[in-house]
C-alpha cells in the first residue's frame, strides 16, 4: 500500500433521489475522477447510492472540538426552537 502521496477525499453518497448526500467515509485518490470511481467501488457496491459527491478533505473547514461548549451547549435549554408544536401532514414526508 503506497498511496501516501495521494490526497484524502471525503465521500458523500445520496442513497435515493430526494434525500440529501450523507457523509459515507473517506478514501485516497490521485484526482477527482479517480475519487469518484473509487467511491463507486468502495461505498456503493451494495446498492447504497444513486449519486456521489467527493471533496478533498483538505478543503473542508471544520469547527474546533475545543469550541464545542460555547458553540453548542447554549442550545441545550431552548426546547422552543424545535418545531414540535406543529402537526405535519403525512403527505409532506421527509422533513
Amino acid at each position: 500500500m503506497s498511496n501516501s502521496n495521494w490526497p484524502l477525499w471525503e465521500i458523500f453518497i445520496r442513497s435515493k433521489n430526494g434525500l440529501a448526500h450523507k457523509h459515507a467515509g473517506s478514501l485516497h485518490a490521485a484526482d477527482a475522477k479517480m475519487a469518484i470511481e473509487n467511491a463507486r467501488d468502495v461505498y456503493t457496491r451494495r446498492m447504497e447510492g444513486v449519486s456521489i459527491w467527493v471533496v478533498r478533505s483538505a478543503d473542508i473547514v471544520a469547527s474546533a472540538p475545543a469550541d464545542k461548549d460555547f458553540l453548542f451547549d447554549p442550545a441545550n435549554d431552548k426546547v422552543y426552537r424545535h418545531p414540535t408544536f406543529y402537526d405535519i401532514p403525512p403527505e409532506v414526508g421527509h422533513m
Partner: protein
Amino acid sequence: MTQLQQFNYTIRLADDALILGQRLSEWCGHGPILEEDIALANIALDYIGQATNLYKHAAQLDTQKRDEDALALTRMEQEYNNILMLELPNGDYAATIMRQYYYTSFYLLFLDKLKSSNDAFFSGFAEKSIKELRYHVQHASDWVKRMGDGTEESHKRIQEAANQLWPYVGEMFGMDALENELANAGYAVDRALLVDEWKKQCTALFDEATLAMPTEAWHHKGGREGRHTEHMGFLLAEMQFMQRAYPGAKW
C-alpha cells in the same frame, strides 16, 4: 444449428468469464492500493456472476445433464475453451490492466452485437452485462492513460505489457466452423467484424496515453480447441481443489 453447437458456444463464453474472474480474484488482498483492490475484486465478481448465468444456461443444453457446478469445476483442462490471454498469469499491475483493456474493450463491442442475437437468453445476457462492461472499460482505460503518461517507470511497464499481450489479442476475433455457422443463423456474433472498430478505439486510447501500438502480426490460438498454455493446469488445480477434494460440498 444443433443443441450441441449451442452448448459448445455457451461453454466458450462461460469459460472466458470464469477464467478471467478467477485470475482477477487472485488480486484480492494484493492490490497496489486499498481502493484498487476493492475495484478489481468487484470486477472479478462481475465475471463470476456472468459465468454462473452462462453455466446455468449451458447445463440446460447439456446432453450429459451436468449442472453448473460440475461444468465450472470438474471438467478436464482440454475441455475448457477459453481464449489463452485470459488464463495468463496476472503479472504486474500494468499487465493486469492492459489485459483488462484489451479484453473488455473487445467484449463490450461483442456484447453490443450479441444483444441482437435471436436467442432470448443471449440477448438478455448481453443487455445485462453491457452495464458491467462499460464500467470495466472505463476503469481499464483510465489506468492505461494514467500509466501511459505517468512516470517513466509506469510508461515503460504499461508499454511492455501492451507489447507482450498483443500476440494474444488475435484469438478474441477468431472464427471457426462452429461460430461461423451460429453467426450465420443469427444466434452468435461474427467476431471478425469487430476488429476494425476495436483497433480504432485502441489506437485512439494509445495516442492519448502516449503509447505505441504494437505491430507484431503473429497470434497465439488454441484455447477454443482446449489447447492451453502451461499456466492453465495450475489455475485449474487451485480453482478446482475444493470441488475435487469434497465433491458437492456446500456451506
